[in-house]
């Protein structure tokens, strides 16, 4: 065992004693100042950008309102909240039908064929500026 490892051993034992018995004299100074390499490594570790992360995103609780809204609420809100739909400029019923069909064909939304027209009718009926 080298002298350096022996010193590390003492530090480790002191650390364990500290953990086990609480109070202890201040840790003795490290046997050597850290090398530039060690400092760089420590800085890189501190800046290492990948740490487990999580986030809770809001679901959005806005519902479609008014006569005919049920079919929109039942079909549209499983994939997206209502906001963007309600923000659309005035669009004809035919354009709305195209949009709803795109949800079915391009995005495979489970919208029954029989619901396409009622949804389009409802969305075209909403008051828009």
């Amino acid at each position, binding site marked *: 065992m080298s002298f350096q490892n022996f010193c590390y051993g003492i530090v480790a034992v002191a650390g364990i004693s500290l953990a086990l018995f609480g109070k202890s004299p201040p840790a003795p100074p490290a046997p050597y100042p850290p090398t530039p390499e060690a400092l760089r490594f420590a800085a890189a570790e501190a800046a*290492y*950008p*990948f*740490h*487990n*992360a*999580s*986030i*809770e*995103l*809001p*679901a*959005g609780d*806005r519902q479609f309102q008014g006569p005919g809204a049920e079919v929109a609420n039942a079909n549209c809100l*499983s*994939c*997206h*909240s209502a*906001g*963007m739909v309600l*923000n*659309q*400029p*005035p*669009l004809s019923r035919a*354009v709305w039908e195209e*949009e709803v069909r795109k949800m079915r064909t*391009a*995005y*495979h*939304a*489970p919208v029954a064929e029989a619901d396409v027209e009622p949804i389009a009718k409802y969305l075209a009926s909403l008051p*828009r*500026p």
Partner: protein
Amino acid sequence: MTSSRRHLLGGAAALAAAWVSGARAAEVDLNLPGGGGVRPLITDYPQKGAMILQRTRPPLLETPFEVFDEGTFTPNNRFYVRWHWAVIPTEVDVNAFRLEVKGHVNAPLSLTLRELYNLPRVELAAVNQCSGNSRGLFQPRVPGAQWGNGAMGNAKWVGVRLRDVLDRAGVRAGATVVRFGALDQPVVQEGPDFMKSLALDHARDGEVMIAYLMNGEPMTLNHGFPIRLIVPGWFSTYWVKALNSIEVLDGPDENYWMKTAYRIPDTPGANVRPGQTGFGTVPINHMVPRSFVTNLRDGAGLPMGAPAPLRGIAFGGSTGVRAVDVSTDGGASWQPATLGPDEGKYGFRRWEAGFTPTARGEARIMVRCTNNDGLAQPAEPNWNGGGYMRNGIETTSVRIG
């Protein structure tokens, strides 16, 4: 009034509105043609500051325009957010995460984040702009996310070169395209998984980056943690967030997000007449120059005879800014603006110009960017049915009194 002061006042107004209504904190009017531009300004979205709410799930959050007056770089917590599918990676185990490199390569890879981090580190400033930024301003209006001008931002990105990763796997002869996939998933099983692709030469140009830092901070989940693709000068649809798959193909990518979605007319400036038919389409690609006044809102009042310096931002798109010119008389005459420091050719460039109103009434302030390829913003706004790539000269109308 300084922008921070305006900001404070906005906050106070927001609080007052909340006090009165007891509900919504504040609203923003995007002044879309024909109306319908009022949106909630929300302050409770995770990891974000005040943002304009376009849609809650999957999120479409727009940057309030006054943020662009505050600096060259857009703060991460004010940067716009846009996801396609609602199954967003809301939790990432960094030890389990792998970046797969597969397909037409000699040695498929499954890289840990540590391995990726140990590759040579590169850095650049670049504007990230949604293909449909400003769609709400199209006339006639078109369906889609009704953005104002705030679906863009500029950040300093740090990461590794995509080329270094591809070279590690060894691209095989005959490869032509590189496709990128991510952790997000379709809500519906059969729905098209979000994937985008770039030509191999583009992917290997040494600029396309796999980034892990955004403005000096680790990427947040909203912006694609742990890693996202950076495609400088190209629209954000290619900047795949939460990147976990790189697939080298030996033929064209036929997936929905390349073949059907995000297509623009194959015409100069992606410009067509409403109702026009008979043109081909191509996947949207590089950006085009844009510029904005950031210290004056449309409809603001200015006193006669008092100096009212103008300032704003510009970007060249696929190359740097050569010049910004300003008109205060509705385009009749133009004067060159003074450009701020060049922080990188793909980033925002700040500009300033003197202005002292000399006539009462309305003044129409216009700003025009010309990029290093000599491409200038068109006087007439371009139009297409997808609402993509808007870049006409912007006009801010102010009242002089």
